[in-house]
């Protein structure tokens, strides 16, 4: 038994198993999230959502996926064929790669990089490039408009995102994701154990959550794909699995954003009142469940927000970022630095 485990989880075959697990997880995540999103959206609008395929429509996304795979990928005349095909892959792969540093539990983490936060941020930023390439290569004015908006928006929102994460990094003194989790152990009764329970941590978390929604291009910040103005924005010309990969990329980005928020601000796989010690299989399972519960709770709130608020206008979007989020996150960073320094004295 242990021979088999060793064979399956050590390098030559282990890499394949790890990749397979990650891909399966990401695909399942997207399928489930698409279903959950449509169901929630339906109930918020007082209709049942997917309903026909399978009990309560749970097979709807499977059927949709099959349909997408069966469709022809059309490449418009005048499009840059290579870039056109590259963009969906570029939007889909980086978030999956970034998942390798996410600590699901004490030992369920592919690599605990010393620069974990930087690694995640640099890979998440590739999404902008994918959108720009998609819009540019489509040779379609709406796609290009969507791409331009995406770049303007993501570049602006990256600043408060980085600063809010930097606040957490200051607090922990490390870029390592496992260090964040370790710093948030203990009981909340003995003092703020999770970063979000401290006032500056709460502000940083809110800023991160808002900018994270903008980075994943979700409503109310879905200017790059505003249906009513730009048909579908940057993915107007994509059909079949090209479109499907953009969708997978979006939902994987959501998952990544929520899991980073969980790790940095919400105590990772720890409960607020007790620390789960030991390293048994059961403990690990509990930790993974706690982590996923927090992550999907955040995603649930993101979906809820999406179906509540109307899309912002572009000037409102930019004003909100430059006049509110950036000053607030900068002040917050300064306050954190001062408080931490005073605490040391």
């Amino acid at each position, binding site marked *: 038994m242990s021979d088999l485990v060793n064979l399956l989880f050590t390098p030559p075959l282990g890499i394949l198993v790890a990749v397979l697990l990650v891909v399966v997880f990401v695909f399942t995540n997207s399928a489930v999230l698409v279903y959950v999103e449509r169901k929630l959206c339906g*109930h918020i*609008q*007082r*209709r049942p959502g997917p309903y026909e395929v399978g009990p309560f429509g749970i097979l709807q996304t499977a059927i949709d996926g099959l349909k997408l795979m069966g469709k022809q990928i059309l490449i418009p005349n005048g499009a840059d064929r290579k870039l056109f095909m590259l963009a969906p892959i570029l939007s889909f792969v980086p978030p999956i790669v970034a998942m390798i540093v996410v600590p699901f539990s004490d030992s369920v983490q592919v690599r605990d990089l010393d620069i974990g936060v930087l690694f995640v941020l640099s890979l998440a930023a590739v999404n902008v490039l994918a959108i720009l390439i998609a819009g540019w290569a489509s040779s379609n004015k709406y796609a290009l408009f969507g791409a331009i908006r995406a770049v303007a928006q993501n570049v602006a929102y990256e600043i408060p995102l980085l600063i809010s994460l930097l606040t957490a990094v200051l607090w922990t003194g490390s870029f390592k994701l496992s260090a964040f989790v370790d710093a948030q152990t203990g009981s909340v009764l003995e003092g703020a154990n999770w970063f979000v329970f401290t006032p500056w941590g709460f502000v940083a978390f809110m800023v991160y959550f808002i900018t994270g929604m903008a980075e994943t291009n979700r409503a109310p910040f879905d200017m790059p794909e505003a249906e009513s103005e730009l048909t579908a924005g940057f993915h107007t010309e994509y059909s079949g699995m090209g479109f499907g990969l953009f969708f997978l990329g979006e939902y994987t980005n959501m998952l990544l954003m929520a899991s980073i928020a969980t790790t940095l601000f919400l105590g990772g796989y720890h409960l607020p009142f007790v620390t789960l010690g030991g390293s048994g299989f059961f403990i690990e399972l509990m930790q993974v469940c706690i982590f996923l519960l927090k992550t999907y709770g955040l995603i649930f709130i993101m979906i*809820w927000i999406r179906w*509540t608020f109307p899309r912002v206008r572009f000037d409102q979007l930019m004003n909100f970022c430059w006049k*509110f989020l950036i000053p607030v996150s900068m002040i917050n960073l300064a306050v954190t630095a001062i408080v931490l320094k005073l605490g040391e004295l």
Partner: protein
Amino acid sequence: MFEYLREVVIGAKSLLVGMAITAKYGFSKTVTVHYPYEEIEITPNFRGHIDLVLNPKNGKHKCISCMMCQRACPSGCINIHAEKPEGAKKKQLVSYHLDFTKCSLCANCTEACPTSALEFSNEYNLVGTSRHDFHFELVGRLNARAEALGLVAEEVAVPEPPAKPDAGETQSPDSGE
């Protein structure tokens, strides 16, 4: 500065109010009707295609074959075939053909009818693969309805062949009213 903070607080509060509203509706009952499985009751004012009025006492129609509706129809979509069988005093309705593809639902036929034998049906589930699917035979539909209501189907079926004189006598008091 104060204005700025006030705007922030009011804005944040309005966002929370909005989310509370969607949460409330998210947990309330859905209001949609699952159409092929459920149907809502249609308003009685709805104008479907015309149908013969069913006399609930004997399961028969009230038509006296006066041809007024056929003449009143501006689109010419009504085609009545009536015969006067040997020995009968009055004409007997054999078939009432309606070409619904041409009908404009103007209600001239129902207004023209001296015995109020015509009405608009509530039929809105109409679908067909060719235009011939919308040519209706109203006498047959009436008999089917009478049968579904359990109004002595045989008795209704008997008067339809024009050779039976007794059917004509039973019908004439109704239509003469």
